[in-house]
């Protein structure tokens, strides 16, 4: 059976495509270094338009108006530029009231696309641009530690990592946040207080990595301007051991927090990358795996959500305590406790 995979790797080659949802302008060159928060492509997704009624403006018929239109499709215009005319003794003209580009002219009308604020696509990781997709985006590559999560608030940034928790299940509280954290990324455990997020915003954090968060805080988490990534789930859950071991020993390293919302179809998953100097000693981030014995697995649902163990053996169809029948496996936790769990509630830790 195909297994979903979650990566917690100390050193791997990370390659990510960053593509615009529509055509736009790609900014870096191939081989260029980029930082995580750097804009690598932009597109004017929803530009505003103005439709100028040239015929009415000039006081002539539609057929006649077309003769007086001075601007052609694709031409840029500035405020006050003459679009059509002059006509008659009064030398009537139609002028651009806003800067923009002519997208259509004819039938007595001119359609102007106004200059708007473009959508900015950020690199999401610090690395080298190794591929260009014309008008769409880039592929960025870096070497580093990789820790994937389950939820993000859609923001990206990076900074030096400060570890504020001593144990995987510790709660992050407001008294731990102070001015010294400004511009940095914080590793917390559980967050159940909206004031923590507000204080973090006030202290201008550049990222917050949490094991878990109360789902009641989702609206607040969506409002803040720094990335928040949740590694294990909602509710009071300790951080999975693999991620805790890696991240809690990485204080003062640069951490890139790409708190993308998990989109399985597009292949975007929230993740933390700790960049490292280039090396050939990387662990391959395998994506396609079948469930089998001796794999490290992470529990994704149920009472042991977030815990990590070893898949001892596949059991075939089993009736769960809920009464549901499912393909299951025996999983041995780090404390030697053995559990029977549906394969649907496991992901392979690679």
């Amino acid at each position, binding site marked *: 059976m195909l297994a979903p995979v979650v990566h917690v790797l100390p050193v791997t080659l990370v390659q990510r495509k960053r593509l615009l949802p529509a055509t736009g302008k790609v900014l870096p060159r191939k081989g260029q270094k980029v930082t995580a928060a750097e804009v690598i492509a932009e597109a004017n997704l929803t530009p505003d338009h103005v439709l100028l009624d040239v015929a009415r403006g000039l006081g002539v018929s539609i057929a006649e108006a077309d003769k007086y239109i001075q601007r052609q499709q694709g031409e840029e215009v500035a405020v006050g530029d003459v679009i059509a005319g002059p006509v008659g003794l009064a030398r009537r003209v139609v002028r651009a009231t806003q800067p923009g580009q002519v997208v259509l002219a004819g039938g007595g009308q001119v359609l102007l696309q106004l200059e708007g604020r473009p959508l900015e696509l950020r690199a999401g990781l610090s690395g080298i641009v190794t591929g260009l997709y014309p008008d769409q985006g880039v592929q960025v590559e870096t070497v580093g530690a990789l820790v994937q999560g389950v939820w993000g608030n859609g923001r990206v940034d990076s900074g030096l990592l400060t570890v504020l928790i001593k144990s995987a299940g510790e709660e992050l509280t407001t008294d731990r946040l102070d001015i010294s954290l400004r511009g940095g990324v914080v590793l917390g455990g559980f967050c159940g207080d909206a004031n923590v997020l507000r204080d973090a915003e006030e202290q201008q954090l550049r990222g917050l990595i949490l094991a878990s968060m109360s789902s*009641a805080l989702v609206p607040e988490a969506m409002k803040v301007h720094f990335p928040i990534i949740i590694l294990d789930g909602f509710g009071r859950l300790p951080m999975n051991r693999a991620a805790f071991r890696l991240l809690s020993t990485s204080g003062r390293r640069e951490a890139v927090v790409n708190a993308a919302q998990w989109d399985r179809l597009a292949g975007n998953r929230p993740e933390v990358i700790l960049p490292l100097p280039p090396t050939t000693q990387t662990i391959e981030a395998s994506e396609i795996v079948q469930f089998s014995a001796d794999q490290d697995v992470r529990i994704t649902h149920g009472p042991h959500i977030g815990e990590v163990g070893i898949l001892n053996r596949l059991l075939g169809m089993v009736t769960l305590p809920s009464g549901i029948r499912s393909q299951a496996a025996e999983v041995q936790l780090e404390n030697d406790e053995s559990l029977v769990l549906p394969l649907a509630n496991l992901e392979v830790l690679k």
Partner: protein
Amino acid sequence: MSPSSVSADSVLSIEVGSVYTRAVLFDVVENSYRFLGEGTAFTTAGAPHYDISEGVRQALGELQVFSGRVFLGADKQLILPSQPDGSGVDKCVATLSVGPPLRVVAVGLLEDVSAQSAQNLAVTTYAQVMEVINMNDRRATAARLDAVLRARPDLIIVAGGTEGGASQSLMNLLEAVGLACYVLPKGYRPSLLFAGNQALVNSVRSSFADLGPLFIAPNIRPAIEVERLLPAQSQLSQVVRQARLRQIFGAQNLDQWTGGKLMPTAAAFGRTIRFIGNEYARTQKGVLGVDVGAASTTIAAAFSDHLVLNVHPRLGLGESLPGLLSASSLDEIARWLPLEISNDTLRDYIFNKAVYPASLPVTLEELSIEHALACQIIQVALKKTARNFPADALRSSYGFLPYFEPIIASGSVLTQAPQRGQTLMMLLNAIQPAGVTTIALDQNTIAAALGAVASLNPLLTVQSLDSNNFQNLCTVISPVGEAQLGTPILRVRVVYGDGSENSVDIKYGSLEMIKLPIGQTATVQLHPLHRFDVGMGGPGRSGSVKVVGGGLGLVVDGRGRPLPLPAEPGRRRDLLKKWLWTLGVSS
């Protein structure tokens, strides 16, 4: 059925859902079509495969283990038709529900008439209406154009102009739509489905021919008071098919296996319900189909030949689950829980389930949460859909839902509930049917497959609509009226096939299960009291019905409509437990 009337075509049905891909095999056994088995795998539309073919291959591999039949050749293509060595199949049908909902802009002349019909058409498939443009819209053309662009539509549905009615006003409205299509780069232009005044078809063709894929359908609002969505739904299915062929890698290959007949799963499900509706037209009741999926819930109701089909993309038990919270409060969900579970736990569960939509409930507590969620999802989806049920549909004089016969339930949360009493409890609480109805469970989850196959091999569909596939859960009798709790409201006399009898007095507020073994027929005489309406022609009217025993026999739901639940949580939970126990659910 004579042997010559059954063509010996084996049929493979493939359904690609947002979480699972299923391959189902039908073939002729003893001169009749049978469901032979299924293979299931995770859908592989997203990372890391980005190609549904892998999931399809895995599902076919599992089916091969069950059936012993080889489906794929060395080139990894389906062997079509079946070969003398027994490999391959004769026909293949496929349905798809994976993929983001289509973003739709609805355009119509009048807000409550054709613009509403355009929206009604949109919700018959996996779509979300992002913008509505109509004649009352006072925005300038450029503002309308920007609104269309902001909606980033995959599809623009245009309705309006009764047959022989207005034409220029609609063309004026279409100016902004045309400009929007024009300014978008070629690969990003939406499809346009024109389902308005047919006198405008040529004008629309000439205006939009070069502005993206154009589909023409019959007028969905041919007269002010007439809405006809069905003919346009097949065109809409084509639009969805085309969109999925572009969006979902591997869909093209699957489409080739079906000879270009890939269908949206919801449309196929609706077709089956309509098919059953025709079979049951003599009852003068509607047929209701409920399909709860991970990404969406589909409600289909057939009233004779008229189909009401609604897809609710924000109401699924998977990734879209947090969307339920915009339609329901936590308290509304928690009211269906027989166990004490805090609202915080419930909300956390919803968000955790959304990030792992394939996950399964391990404990009884989790199972009860899933069932409460399913119950609320069905209720919300049905309430939204019920607005479109025909006003003249036969229903209790006290209002509520029309009478249905039967109600078909599909979706793994219902079919894979550990105990059938749990399934029935979800359905009774969510739907709250009135009168006498049979509840059947699509236990092999083939309702959509049968709809897809209906145009290819209607005999297969007819022969598969049997109790092997659609398990009769029970006949439920639901008297409607008003009384004090504990007041006798209905006398039920069951006369069994062997002549023995059983009489039960039903009190208001009670739920009773009366023994009637599977497949056994009985005549049930109903004598309502206190002017309760039991669907026999009006309040207080008596009558008798012939019923067939289901897995849970005969159930009399005298709990009231709408179902009143105690406000005090402890009492409510005790009552829910008691009802589950009545339906044979052991904890």
